[in-house]
């Protein structure tokens, strides 16, 4: 499902801003609002160059009033616009969660399906650069626990573009998570995979279709976002040890491609979930439960998870590295599983 390697290379941030720009050209109802989305181009570059192309009417810097401007996206969408609205860090959700949780996500249902709210809510997530407890969280599990929101967590520039166009064209609210580390920012360690081939033309990637980022036969690593790359790294290490790991990138948490999870586990007979979010009551549990419900007999070893161990993200490097999943931890866990 990837573009040929010879194709144009873009960073994830560029892939996203290109997707937004192409939709803004195509559809005058699409506009962008958020903090520092204009001249600054978005703190994580998702809206770079949009202001100069589309002007301040369609690329709107807002006051620091997330309840007002995310709520405004609801009203604007109800009135025929297709807002893209940025919550700068997902960690800030608590100042505006009511508009997201009780309104954006529920109004369509409460109206008996009469109201369409084509809102794309974009937000940055993730840690690893010492931004501490209020700027490093993942939290996608909380939004995936919300009936009425689709939840997208891309891992590559290619997926990012296709999923963004899909999100903007969806007539439902979509929350789109961008891991800071895969945006390909000039001011953060450059993950190699943060730049990759992205076709110039428009394309969409359907929601609810997980992507096997690496095929394998001994263990299924289910993951999403930045952790796809950590898992791929682990898979490489494991390959050297003769263990063949399959890396399944969920790409969207809602809808969740349970079939892909189950099918992969039926093949590999082992499941490990890698999740940058807090361990308990979240994504990692949901994936394991899905298998325990639907493919219990295929599991040859207890399911495992590598996730943030239910502590706030500490600032200091040694501690932060300790709590974040990485290739070594994943590989070590898989080796244990395979050893039995």
């Amino acid at each position, binding site marked *: 499902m990837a573009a040929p390697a010879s194709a144009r290379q873009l960073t994830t941030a560029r892939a996203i801003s290109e997707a937004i720009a192409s939709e803004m050209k195509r559809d005058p109802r699409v506009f962008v609002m958020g903090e520092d989305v204009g001249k600054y181009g978005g703190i994580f570059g998702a809206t770079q160059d949009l202001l100069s192309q589309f002007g301040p009417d369609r690329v709107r810097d*807002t*006051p620091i009033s997330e*309840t007002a401007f995310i709520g405004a996206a609801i009203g604007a969408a109800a009135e025929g616009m297709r807002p893209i609205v940025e919550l700068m860090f997902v960690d800030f959700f608590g100042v505006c969660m009511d508009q997201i949780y*009780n309104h954006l996500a529920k109004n369509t249902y409460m109206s008996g399906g009469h109201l369409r709210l084509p809102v794309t809510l974009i937000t940055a997530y993730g840690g690893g650069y010492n931004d501490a407890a209020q700027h490093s969280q993942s939290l996608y599990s909380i939004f995936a626990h919300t009936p009425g929101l689709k939840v997208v967590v891309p891992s590559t520039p290619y997926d990012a573009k296709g999923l963004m166009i899909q999100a903007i064209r969806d007539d439902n609210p979509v929350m789109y998570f961008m891991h800071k580390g895969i945006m390909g920012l000039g001011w953060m360690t450059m993950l190699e995979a943060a730049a990759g081939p992205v076709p110039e033309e428009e394309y969409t990637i359907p929601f609810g279709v997980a992507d096997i980022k690496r095929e394998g036969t001994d263990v299924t690593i289910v993951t999403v976002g930045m952790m796809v790359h950590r898992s791929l790294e682990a898979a490489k290490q494991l390959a050297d040890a003769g263990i063949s790991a399959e890396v399944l990138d969920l790409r969207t948490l809602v809808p969740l491609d349970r079939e892909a999870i189950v099918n992969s586990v039926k093949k590999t007979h082992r499941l490990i979930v890698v999740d940058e979010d807090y361990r308990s009551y979240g994504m990692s549990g949901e994936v394991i439960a899905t298998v325990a419900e639907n493919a219990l007999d295929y599991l040859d070893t207890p399911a495992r998870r590598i996730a943030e161990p239910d502590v706030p993200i500490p600032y200091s490097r040694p501690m932060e590295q300790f709590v974040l999943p990485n290739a070594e931890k994943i590989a070590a866990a898989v080796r244990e599983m395979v050893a039995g």
Partner: protein
Amino acid sequence: MPLDQQTALSLYRQMVTIRGFEETMVQVYTEGKTPVFDIGSGPVPGEMHLAAGQEPVAVGVCAHLRPTDFVTGPHRAHHFAIAKGVDLKKMAAEIFGKETGLGKGKGGHMHLFDTAVKFSCSGIVGAGMPPAVGAGLAAKMQGRDDVAVAFFGEGAANQGAFHESLNLAAVWKLPVVFVCEDNSWAISVPKTTATAIPSNADRAQAYGIPGVAVHENDVAAVYEVASEAVAHARRGEGPSLLEIHTERYLGHFQGDPEVYRDPQEVPHFKEHDPINRLRDQMKAQGWLTDEQDAEIRRAARATVDEAIAFARESPYPAPEEALEDVFVAVG
């Protein structure tokens, strides 16, 4: 703009209809809840917040609105819905939880959505303001001269959403009218102990927008003040804030023991009931005869009865309908 006869009659009709609806709901709500009150029983279960006594704010403001203007209401929103022209049958059916309801029975009384007249409401205090700002933004971006109106209680004026919404609407000069319906109570908490200043209209200064208070529960006064606020928005001159004093005749919700308020308060309110007041004014001006009055009341009664009958007769949704409409078909 002062009231002319035709408008006065129209406002009167609407107020009578609203009052009729609310008084009917008082009755309907008790069905299945006697001798033992059980909030989950009867044809209309759940919470029920009624607006008898508060008709002027709804009809006085909505008289200036078109179907293409956008309105958000709070948890107590029947009067706003009716004044905005929401289909009364579908609204009643929604309140009865029927398949023919505005939201096919999924929303209920605090969540009435009528896209035909651009009405919605919410059970979360203060939550209607941000969407109204967005609707105003859409109108402005689309070059329409439609406006958005957010109705909310005086209790809601202490929510953060109030501040953020007024500031945003002011900064972007959006066609939004914020209408604070001040019935002086937020459930059991009186405004005097919750709000730091006597008049929320004065808070408009914090946003550099007009703020006007109407101190009487009088539809003519509301009509006049709202006329300018709506016109101001329609002319592209930005938002404004109205504070309309009114009076809550019933409990916060039906079943409220009301241990917190003086039992004399409501009888006292009723001495200057806004519907009677308009009736008397119109009679004094020769705009309304007793006969016409009786006819208006009969017609209102019939409208309400018809809506309730429709609701009663409509079927319940199939249980598994619960699983539909979380998302619309992908567009």
